[in-house]
């Protein structure tokens, strides 16, 4: 995408939220994990989900993209109800998912992994930009995907959804296992993506990092949103947050 | 009033299912009906099972039939290894075993049993028929393609003996894994041996594949002849005349031999979906008929008596003609040498054979003295 052009997603200007989650419940088999999540994300925003281990952050992400079929409630994306759709249809609407466990394919080379997700909308990053962002990947392009180091795999997982043109990115703990220098890099990347009009939902343990990139934070506890804090108010609420996160 | 139970034990799912299988059950039923057993006060029940060409399965079923189900006689049992095992069990349980489908001469030779009768053919008779005839027609150098198991080897050995006795020579042989689907390499070896006759000492699918490929490689056009040492009409049907034409083969029965065979075969075909009977089917019919005759004569089904009676009475029926059950259990009757017709010569769907010669009963089978059966020493 050339610089200077206006954000290409028409929803960006619309007042309606890009994603609206209402009373979302989700189950793993018989265990009820999400108990009525309610939150929304406007176009162009970076929003984080914070919470302790097991609070239900990952489950929320999986529910949005639809890989967890047992869910109820409402998830509206660009004004469309997606709760009944299979995940491939949801992805085609323009949602990119970077899973917690990275999901690098062992039987594919790094390049093949990178090229795997199909382009769903115009406006994705060109491959060169992605490789420039993560030089390690370029160097190891012909390696088997899972032969990469832990951190390199994380870069690959993020990199591959930037290509697809999805305008909502779901990043589940993208900084886990990354060296500080790369975390800084990722932070700058997220900022750049935001400038390009991408909308991002970020799950993070590392709220100091989150604070550097996010507009807003939702606090998740036992499958519910228990608080929302604007980034600007973060300092003021730091004690409350520490209590939530058990620090 | 005698009640007998017959068990038709044969291959119902494997390579020999067409030449024996359900057809043998039909043949046994026809024998019971034709004999009018019920009117003569003999109540006959027929059961059947699949031995899958495995001796342990065959022996197991035989044992259970005799022990549990009250079977008096077992019929058919193609595949020599199973037949030998069933013969063993039959002797132990003192019942009656009338084999039609198997080829082993040992059944009435070294491993003969007072309770076993071998009806239709054996490897010696096949060798004698086809081997002898080929040499007589000038095919005096041979190369064998032999299935690498006892039946194939015995067919090769028997034929070798006949061929050399008739002044012919065996130039070589190759043992093929069993079963095999590609014979081109073996055919090529046979071809380069320069032998006039290529003897196929195998059966079923192996033979079909070998013949099909021989025609493809132009072996016969180049002047060598093929001798299928054991070919059933079902095999010829599967090959089609185009590939099978010119083959010389030995059978104990052909549907189109005479009025008697034609009449019976038509009835058989009507009950088996249009398929003409093989000699194995005919042998089952013939054997059951003779068995019932013996029971009728004795008004008893005591195995020892029945077998003695069967050996005493000459055999005589429309399918196999006149013959005799020898003391070693071997049934002797005429055998026939056929040649497979060219497609142009055939007048109908099952019109496959030309009769070349009739081998009289007395010459067709191995003399009892040479068999090594301990019963007749």
């Amino acid at each position, binding site marked *: 995408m050339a610089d200077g052009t206006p954000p290409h997603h028409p929803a960006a200007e619309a007042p309606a939220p890009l994603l609206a989650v209402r009373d979302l419940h989700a189950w793993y088999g018989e265990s009820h994990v999400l108990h009525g999540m309610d939150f929304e994300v406007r176009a162009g925003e970076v929003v984080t989900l914070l919470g302790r281990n097991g609070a239900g952050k990952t489950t929320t992400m999986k529910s949005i993209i639809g890989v967890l079929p047992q869910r109820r409630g409402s998830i509206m994306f660009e004004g469309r109800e997606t709760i009944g759709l299979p995940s491939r249809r949801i992805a085609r609407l323009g949602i990119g998912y970077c899973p917690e466990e990275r999901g690098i394919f062992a039987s594919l080379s790094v390049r093949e992994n990178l090229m795997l997700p199909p382009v769903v909308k115009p406006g994705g990053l060109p491959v060169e930009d992605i490789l420039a962002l993560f030089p390690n990947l370029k160097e190891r392009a012909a390696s088997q995907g899972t032969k990469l180091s832990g951190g390199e795999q994380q870069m690959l997982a993020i990199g591959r959804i930037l290509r697809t043109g999805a305008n909502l990115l779901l990043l589940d703990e993208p900084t886990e296992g990354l060296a500080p220098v790369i975390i800084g890099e990722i932070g700058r990347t997220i900022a750049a993506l935001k400038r390009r009009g991408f909308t991002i939902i970020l799950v993070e343990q590392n709220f100091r990092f989150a604070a550097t990139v996010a507009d807003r934070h939702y606090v998740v506890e036992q499958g519910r949103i228990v608080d929302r804090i604007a980034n600007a108010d973060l300092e003021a609420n730091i004690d409350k947050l520490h209590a939530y996160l058990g620090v | 009033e005698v009640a007998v139970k017959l068990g038709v034990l044969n291959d119902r799912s494997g390579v020999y299912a067409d030449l024996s299988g359900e057809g043998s059950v039909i043949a046994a039923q026809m024998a019971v009906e034709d004999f009018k057993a019920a009117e003569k006060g003999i109540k006959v029940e027929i059961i059947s099972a699949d031995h899958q060409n*495995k*001796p342990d399965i065959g022996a197991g079923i035989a044992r259970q039939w005799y022990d549990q189900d009250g079977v008096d006689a077992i019929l058919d049992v193609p595949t020599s290894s199973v037949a030998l095992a069933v013969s063993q069990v039959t002797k132990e349980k003192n019942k009656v075993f009338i084999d039609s489908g198997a080829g082993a001469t040992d059944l009435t030779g070294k491993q003969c049993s007072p309770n076993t009768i071998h009806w239709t053919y054996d490897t010696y008779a096949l060798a004698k028929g086809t081997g002898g005839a080929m040499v007589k027609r000038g095919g005096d150098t041979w190369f064998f393609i032999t299935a690498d198991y006892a039946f194939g080897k015995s067919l090769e050995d028997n034929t070798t003996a006949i061929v050399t006795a008739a002044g012919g020579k065996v130039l070589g042989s190759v043992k093929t894994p069993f079963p095999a689907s590609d014979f081109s390499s073996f055919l090529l070896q046979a071809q380069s041996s320069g032998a006039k006759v290529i003897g196929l000492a195998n059966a079923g699918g192996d033979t079909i594949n070998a013949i099909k490929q021989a025609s493809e490689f132009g072996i016969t056009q180049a002047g060598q002849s093929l001798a299928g040492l054991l070919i059933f009409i079902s095999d010829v049907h599967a090959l089609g005349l185009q590939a099978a034409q010119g083959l010389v083969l030995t059978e104990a029965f052909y549907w189109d031999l005479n009025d008697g065979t034609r009449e019976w075969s038509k009835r058989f075909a009507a009950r088996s979906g249009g398929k003409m009977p093989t000699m194995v089917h005919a042998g089952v019919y013939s054997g059951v008929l003779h068995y019932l005759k013996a029971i009728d004569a004795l008004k008893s089904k005591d195995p020892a008596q029945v077998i003695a009676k069967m050996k005493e009475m000459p055999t005589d029926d429309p399918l196999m003609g006149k013959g005799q059950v020898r003391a070693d259990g071997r049934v002797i009757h005429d055998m026939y040498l056929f040649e497979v017709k060219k497609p142009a010569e055939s007048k109908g769907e099952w019109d496959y054979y030309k009769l070349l010669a009739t081998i009289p009963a007395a010459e067709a089978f191995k003399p009892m003295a040479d068999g090594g059966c301990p019963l007749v020493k």
Partner: protein
Amino acid sequence: MAAPAIPSPATDRRQGAGDRAAFAALLVLIVAAPFVLYPIFLMKVLCFGLFACAFNLLLGYGGLLSFGHAAFFGMASYVSAYAAKTWGLTPELAILAGTLTATVLGLVVGSLAIRRQGIYFAMITLALAQMVYFFCLQAPFTGGEDGIQAVPRGRLFGLIDLSDDRVLYALVAAIVLAGLIAIHRIVHSPFGQVMKAIRDNEPRALSLGYHPERFKLILFTLSATLAGLAGATKALVFQLASLTDVQWTMSGEVVLMALVGGVGTVLGPMAGAVVVVAMETYLAPLGSWVTVTQGVVFVVCVLAFRQGLAGMAGKIWRRLGRAG
């Protein structure tokens, strides 16, 4: 490579109680059955049951799918038949000879096969078993496709005449029970614990200082030995040793038995053997429909009853436990 979907042995105590109950039920059945059913059929079931349980010791508890177990079963059956017929050994010695042959063969095949995993392991065992098959086909002492026929049952310890089916049945039942108890013990032994750990997470076991190959080799050899015990006994029951027992289809059949019965349970495969053998015996009159029926059973098992009979029984047992 593939998700671990072979049901794994349950850990809890309830399993132990379930096992004891199943063993007790089995004992009652074994004693009562010959009064109702044909003893030879029962002996066949018992021999195949032991074979299937031995196979399952390897698959269910070692996570190793052998596709060549027929080699041990069949080879032992040849040796025991040969020993009884040609050397005139007494039945117990013939069985011992067969079983030990399987042990040695197991050691050899195992030491080659355990170096590979998953499907490659299965394929090596298959290939080695095919070589054993070829050997049996070619070696003169096996009698080619006729097999070794008319094997004498002989006198146990030179004293007890086994020609009566009921006497033989008692012997076979004793042997098979002993085999099953041995399997139970192996599974629930210190060795079994380590094996379970290796199956669960091999690299971790390695990092704790265990040599997984040694454990696998021992397990393999034990499994081969017990499979051999089953084969050797079978040869005497049927007085016949034949190629059927060394063929790859037999290796496939034992997988089927284990699957139908329930992989990863001590006695499940026994139940699987009952079903498979009964099907073969009682469907035989169906002729060519036998294979179709067998095929349907396979398909239904895989699609609907992956836990096997034992899995279903376990479910019912647990439900009863909850209710009661």
